[in-house]
């Protein structure tokens, strides 16, 4: 086998290449990416998150939201994400800089959440939805997260945190109210922070067709 040295070189290069490509390269480039400064506001793209939203990421991870919900907007023609209103532009690496971990997701049992904060900016809507999803969307198969909430007797005045407009079988009886736990508040803060509609030069908005 005279071609042995050449063969070894081929083997080495093939192996090394997968490592370099899929592990080293992402680590060195994507992993070192920085947010872009926003001249108008003095902030950054992606914008920094409130402490509560950062805590909300942990609640999102702990309860496995990623197994039904993705967070990525893909480009046409291979997808119709933008035409379906999931976001104004494709999401790129910089959009996930502050995510820990990155919830790209691989299933859309439920809708994509990349821009859920833009579609549903109201806190109360999110609490209602998490408490009893079927009262907000009757065909939903999302499970109830009412274990993140507390049913309590109204002491004098209703609490400022109490969820408004609950209807369904788990709605509070008269004299009772449902208030979110700290985890629920953090989760909703995180969900409302999900808005990847700020401009990024590497991902221009495609022209409307």
């Amino acid at each position, binding site marked *: 086998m005279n071609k042995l040295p050449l063969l070894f070189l081929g083997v080495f290069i093939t192996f090394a290449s997968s490592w370099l490509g899929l592990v080293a390269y992402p680590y060195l480039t994507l992993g070192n990416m920085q947010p872009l400064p926003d001249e108008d506001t003095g902030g950054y793209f992606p914008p920094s998150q409130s402490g509560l939203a950062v805590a909300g990421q942990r609640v999102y991870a702990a309860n*496995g939201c990623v197994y039904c919900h993705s967070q990525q907007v893909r480009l046409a023609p291979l997808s119709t994400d933008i035409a379906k209103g999931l976001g104004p532009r494709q999401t790129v690496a910089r959009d996930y800089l502050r995510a820990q971990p990155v919830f790209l997701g691989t299933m859309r049992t439920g809708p994509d959440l990349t821009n859920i904060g833009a579609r549903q900016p109201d806190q109360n809507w999110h609490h209602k939805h998490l408490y009893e999803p079927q009262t907000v969307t009757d065909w939903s198969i999302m499970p109830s997260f009412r274990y993140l909430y507390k049913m309590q007797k109204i002491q004098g005045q209703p609490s400022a945190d109490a969820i408004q407009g609950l209807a369904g079988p788990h709605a509070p009886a008269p004299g009772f109210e449902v208030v979110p736990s700290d985890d629920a508040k953090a989760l909703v803060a995180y969900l409302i922070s999900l808005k990847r509609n700020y401009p990024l030069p590497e991902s221009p908005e495609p022209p409307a067709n």
Partner: protein
Amino acid sequence: MNPQSLISSFHPANNPDTLASHERAEIDASTRFPVLLFFASAIFWLLIGSLLGLISAWKMTHPGLFDQMAWLTFGRLRPAHLNTVIYGWASAAGIGVGVWLMARLCRVPLLHSKLLISAAIFWNLGVLVGVMGILAGDSRSIEWLEFPGYATPILFIAYAFIGIWAIIMFRFRRPGHVYVSQWYLFAAFLWFPWLYATANILLVWQPIQGSAQGAVNWWFAHNVLGLWFTPIGLASAYYMIPKVIGRPIHSYYLSILGFWSLALFYSWNGMHHLIGGPFPAWMVSASVVASIMMFIPVVTVAINHHMTMRGHFGALKWSPTLRFTVFGAMTYTVVSLQGSSMAIPSLNTLTHFTDYTIGHAHLGLYGFFSMMMFGAMYYIVPRLTGWEWPSANAIRWHFWLVAVGILLMVVSLSIGGILQGLAQFDPQVSFRSSLDYATPFRWIRGLSGFLLLGGHVVFAALFTLMLLKVGRQKEGPALFAAPVKPEAAPL
């Protein structure tokens, strides 16, 4: 052995590769405790994992099921199922089968069984702590790596012990030909601890920033399939098929080619899980190319197994091992070609984010790997306990329950998934429609889960009876007697 004869003893021609039957029995006996320990652990986790999967499946069509408690929410139950079946069942079964095969192929009795027993204990501990951690709310939510950071080092110690053991066994094996199954096993046992450690360091213990996580995540998950499970499954097939029918592999050259091409191309596949995602286009394209290149190792394996079996398919009637193994081997071809096709961007448009992917995952890990493990266990356990399986009918029940179960699951999820994908792609169609299309097929999937769980209960019962040596009184298993021409048996 003096140095002179040691060196010359390395030449294949100078050493008889064959074993006398008492030597083989001695080798089998030396593996008894560690292998049975891994098998018992694996079957225990199989039952738990099947139950977790069954409940998760029914939660998708009945969201109100067990929704009162945090630790039973779908988002925790589903990763608990995934990790239980991957690390608790599949990996433990693979190690048990791999250890037995290594001892047989090294042609020496098992060395350092304490290392393996320690590994088994750490293993079970790691899986237990990990699964409890997920249910308690400490899941990392990184697919295939959900175990919290306090569980993974325990598993890593177990993997490291096994890797070390494999090196020792190989070093002190009887010199001579290294059979293809050994190549596969050695690769799997050596690479997996390193894969596991790297992924955990970069994603769990010292997480890297941003979407780089996605790339490393799927580099890991896909390599677990191709560099851990696939080699163990193929190692088993390459031994069991020729051994059961008494005929050598059709083309040994093809098997070597298959091994090396798998090793070279597989590690680039990972990014095909993230087509369209926030990554440089070349990374995703390279994965698509690698996924197509997989045709080479997959087709070589398919040709090899088919040509070896040709003219002997009647053997499926009288050999439980062959039945499960050939089912697994055929599925390997189908699921690999399916996987390659799913990487093609235009097809990926329809399957990404849908139940189709779930069907594919189960076809691979269950239809290929688990069936392969069942086949191997049916061959190995009698040789360790010195007793025959107590009931041929029960074995048939096991086979048909799980074969029908997995086919039903995969077909229903595939059809449902495509319909889901078509709806998701059409801008005129609401999201609700994608759900409505999938629902009836999720019902069928849920029913298939009962069949699978039933098959596993039968298998667990059979295994327990073997351990207790219950059954017809015989001098010993018919398998150890003089070779008999097998008579026709009912299907």
